[in-house]
């Protein structure tokens, strides 16, 4: 069987796809529907406590970073499918924005 020569790119891609599939819909349901409708309120103390907890930080980082990487990698492939080429510009745009999101998440979690 042929081996993928880009495991570093696609391992987090696959993990991100799974994490996104399992958790994103419920998160969007909460921030986009249940909070606006007033069903949930997400109090500051509780949210800050999660972000302060080391395990909470790790979980939050996984939830944020893996799907962001998944999106970047898949969008790069889709850009290729759309005939936008696979040059440096596409790579820089896709992976660059993911890295920006991931670094911002890491920085926020370390600073909290």
């Amino acid at each position, binding site marked *: 069987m042929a081996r993928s020569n880009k495991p570093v790119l696609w391992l987090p891609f*696959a993990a991100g*796809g*799974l994490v*996104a*599939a*399992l*958790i*994103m*819909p*419920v*998160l*969007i*349901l*909460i*921030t*986009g*529907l*249940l*909070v*606006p409708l007033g*069903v*949930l*309120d*997400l109090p*500051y103390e*509780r*949210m*800050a406590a999660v*972000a302060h907890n080391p395990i909470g930080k790790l979980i*939050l980082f996984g*939830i*944020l970073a893996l*799907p*962001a990487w*998944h*999106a*970047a990698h*898949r*969008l790069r*492939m*889709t850009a290729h*499918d*759309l*005939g*936008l*080429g696979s040059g440096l510009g596409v790579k820089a745009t896709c992976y660059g*924005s*993911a890295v920006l*999101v991931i670094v*911002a*998440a890491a920085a*926020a*979690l370390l*600073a*909290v």
Partner: protein
Amino acid sequence: MSRKPYVRAVRRTWWLRQPRYVVYMIRELTSLFIGLYSAWLVIGLVRLGQGRTAWEAFLAATSSPPAVLFQLVCLAFAAYHSITWFAVTPKAMPLRIKDEPLSGKIIVGGHYAAWAFVSLLVLIAAGV
């Protein structure tokens, strides 16, 4: 990889030719909304780190009509991503137990069960 790979010219609208190509493109575009919503969550996290006032401002922002509309679109694409992602798991991750291939229905069903479990867990953690 060759140094000068041959790139065949493609029309950028090729995927509009057949309904199943359109479905394929919608499936791939789910990633755009996954990425955008991840960015929105990171903004929330940054605001949380800035203190109570900033966090409450984020909650108000996420409840504004444009943000709700944006998130409902994200929700539709995210749910479609879940469904399509789980549907290919038997092919992407075929499992064998004692040399017998595990039925695809069990693999897909297991993912749906995990989806329900994680969603319930998050809702309970969020205080439903």
